[in-house]
């Protein structure tokens, strides 16, 4: 178990800056996820940690030891690739045992350990199959077993679930999390699926174009996005641009652009506290709205409903106020008439202002 730390890590491919001065810390035993759109540099960052890429600038530390130029086989990491990368010329047992053989374990010990880990990933009895006799999910487990059997200091995952079908993906997600908790290995996980990241991670780093946009727990980045990118990338919301016209401690008064209206809001993230005169993005999460029976003095919107969809535990209402689209989630028992106007309310505490 180690702490991973990077300082100004930068990797370029020709003109492309795949990883751009990334500094972050992953704690002992933490499940840390890199989340971001395709091509934002997640894999490249992961590969720098594994030692598969040589960074152009910056440093990588495992605990206090610098490993930036240490070759991969001396880093003691276990990695699971997106396409599993099982060796087709070896059966399941040999695939898993390979790392142990290299470490010079005795035959008996190897057998014992492989069997243990096969049980852990629920593949007992499959040890003599060859990789192409396995289903996608089973191959995935073999790749996982191969990575954890050597008891690595760090576990690295590059979109390990993206090749599985939706149902299996959710099952494996829970299992991965269970295993990681049991083993307590520091884990760096890469995905572009925000739901996956939210459900599995202790902390998430949201990346865009090689840079880290925000680091935080799933709750933090959902409830307190630091910038427009994170706000829009994570979850759904209603977004309105405006200007701060007054400020009273934590309370902001924002004049909106699309609607003739002033609303009360709070700064979304303490580090991005806007001042009077700043242009801001006001965001309200769908579930932060409520249908407004009595008239309030502020933060009430009259919107025209154009679509309602039933999601089981909620109703999703798509509506418009002027040109501004609203996404609202309300109790599934509510009656919301399509084509009519309704009034909705978002309390100032849940109306977030993000400095632009």
């Amino acid at each position: 178990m180690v702490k991973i730390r990077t300082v100004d890590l930068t990797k370029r491919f020709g003109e492309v800056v795949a990883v751009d001065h990334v500094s972050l810390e992953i704690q002992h035993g933490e499940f840390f996820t890199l989340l971001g759109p395709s091509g934002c540099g997640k894999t490249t960052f992961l590969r720098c940690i594994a030692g598969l890429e040589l960074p152009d600038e910056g440093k990588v530390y495992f605990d206090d030891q610098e490993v930036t130029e240490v070759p991969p086989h001396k880093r003691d990491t276990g990695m699971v690739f997106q396409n599993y990368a099982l060796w087709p010329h070896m059966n399941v047992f040999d695939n898993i045992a390979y790392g142990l053989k290299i470490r010079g374990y005795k035959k008996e010990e190897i057998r014992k350990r492989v069997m243990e880990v096969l049980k852990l990933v629920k593949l007992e009895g499959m040890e003599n199959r060859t990789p192409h006799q396995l289903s996608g999910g089973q191959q995935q487990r073999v790749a996982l077993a191969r990575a954890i059997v050597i008891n690595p200091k760090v576990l690295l995952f590059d979109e390990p679930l993206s090749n599985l079908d939706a149902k299996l993906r959710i099952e494996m997600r829970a299992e991965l999390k269970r295993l990681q908790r049991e083993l307590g290995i520091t884990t760096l996980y890469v995905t572009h699926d925000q739901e996956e990241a939210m459900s599995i991670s202790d902390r998430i780093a949201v990346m865009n174009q090689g840079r880290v946009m925000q680091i935080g727990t799933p709750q933090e980045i959902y409830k307190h996005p630091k910038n427009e990118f994170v706000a829009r990338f994570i979850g759904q919301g209603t977004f309105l641009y405006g200007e701060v016209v007054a400020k009273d401690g934590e309370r902001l008064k924002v004049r909106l652009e699309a609607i003739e209206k002033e609303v009360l809001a709070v700064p979304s993230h303490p580090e991005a506290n806007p001042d009077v005169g700043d242009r801001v993005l006001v965001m309200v999460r769908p579930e932060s709205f409520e249908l407004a029976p009595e008239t309030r003095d502020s933060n009430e919107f009259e919107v025209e409903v154009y679509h309602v969809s039933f999601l089981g535990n909620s109703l999703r209402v798509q509506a418009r106020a002027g040109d501004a689209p609203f996404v609202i989630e309300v109790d599934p028992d509510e009656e919301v008439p399509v084509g009519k106007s309704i009034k909705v309310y978002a309390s100032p505490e849940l109306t977030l202002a993000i400095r632009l």
Partner: protein
Amino acid sequence: MGSRAEGLEERLKRSLRRLKWEMDPFSWSQLFIVLAAFAAFMLIPLGMVIVRSFYTSGGFTLDSLKLVLTDDYYFPLRVHLTSDFPFISMEGVRGSLYHVVEYTRPTGEVVKIIYITGWDFGVLVNSLVVATSTAILSTVLGFTLAFIFAKYKFPGAEALRIISLIPLLSTPFVGAIGLKRMIVSDGVLNVLFHDILRVIPFKVEITGLPAVIMVQTLIFYPIVMLNAYTALISLDPSLEEQAINMGASGFRLFRTITLPLATPGVEAGALLVFILALEDLGTPIVFKGTVAEKVLTFQIFNRIFTPAGLISQEATTLALILLVISAVVFVAVRRYVSLRRYAMLGKGGIWRPRRRRLSNKTVVLVYVFVFAVLFFATLPHIGVTLLAFSKEWGTTILPESYTLNNFKAVLADEQARRSIVNSLVYSGIATVFMVILGVSAAYLVSRKKGVPGIEALDLLVTLPIAVPGIAVATGLFLTYLGTPLSPTISGAPLLIASYTVRKIPFTVRSVFSGLEQTDKALDEVAWTVGASRTRTFFTIILPLIALNVLAGGMLSFIYSMSEVSTGIVVGDANHRDAPMTWKMYDMLFHGLAGGLAQPAAMGFMLMGLQFVFIVGANLLLRKRATALIGV
């Protein structure tokens, strides 16, 4: 200025850091052995060719070059400007395209023979004429066939396409022996068309440069065909459909869409054929005694090693000229893609192109054309086979009777027996070297793409296909005569070395394609679980590409067996250690019987081996390609 120098230093530092990161001691040793082998047996020898063309014991001189360029034997052409149309006249061309001889048979029948001998432009231009003509004819033939097979659907097309690749299974030297028997005045063609079918009122005998061109075209056209076929079937069918929708049709479609898209591949193939024709020594040797021997390769071969153990500077200069021509052609186009493809003997792409069905009338035309080509293309091989098994073969279309005596005679000849053993041993040892060096080179090129300058290594190990063998042979003699590696002491070292550097592209390409088909993540995951790169190389990479190594090794082995240039030159210097190709040459001209049957028997053995190995290698690779799917 200062910041610029700093930038350079920065860059250098970064390159060094990269190098340190990518290369471990094992990779360094791989790189070292490849470079050392190429330096010792290719680069330094070729350098010697250049140096010795200009330096004698008396210092720097251009005499030899001057001699070659002014001597009537090498360059007799003189061009004058005139006042009349076409304002230019040329002197020095000897001979004529053909001449006619008539004689009366004892039966009273008058027979007319047309001897197609071709002109003689002097050694230098002859070589260019041969190479150019072969390249053009191969392109026309190869492209037409490829077009037919790629675009039209007709019964038996696939089988015919594979048959039309048969010439790839042979070399010009062996093919020439077979074809020679076919095209002389009482050869099979004349007997068939003149004596039996009586469709032609005269006999035709082809010798000289036209014969060389004919042999080379019939052996080399499949190279262009492969390139063109691959290009044509990998054309996006929707491109052509779009053009058709926009109203293009027939010839216009061909000229504006199909041809331009296929051109790069065809061009590259044509250039490769040009170089192969230029460096071919086997065919001129078979047609020795005619103008065919007035080409660069043969002249070098004839002069390279004097009985006194000296190498004439004339030969060196000719080798230099040959080298320069190939280099210019190679560099001018820089499309060594086709070299790679040739070295792979690939069978084309994977798309299922849309093929048009033909009307019955056109099908007949297509068949006539394809069968005519295949008839001529298989003649050399049929000729060798028939000769090898013939007892007596006079003026009949087929031998009068068959026998194994030719093979028995070969095996009874002690020198022939030894030459077979020599060839097998040298090629075997060379194959071991080629596998070690070739796997190393392919691994570096495929897996160390980050190392600055690694493309140069790729070029270096692919290049030998475009370097004339006789130039390498000359260089090896210049460099090693009088050293412990001298061919006069033992033929083995230079032959093994020459086979190794000249035929290594076949191993490299096969292994390289295996590596490219093997996901790099398979190596990387081994590193992450703790395997060093060396260990990964041996336990993960090698087992995964074993079939490619085997197939590549087989190709390299068989092309070593049929290597002509170095083999004959070294064999001439040291008969005891001579390989099969030298013995065939020796039998052709110094054999007691003097006939073609015994050399043909040896040629048949070579051809048979070649057939088995090449088909085997391709089957191996195909099996592997499917075995990997689904993992």
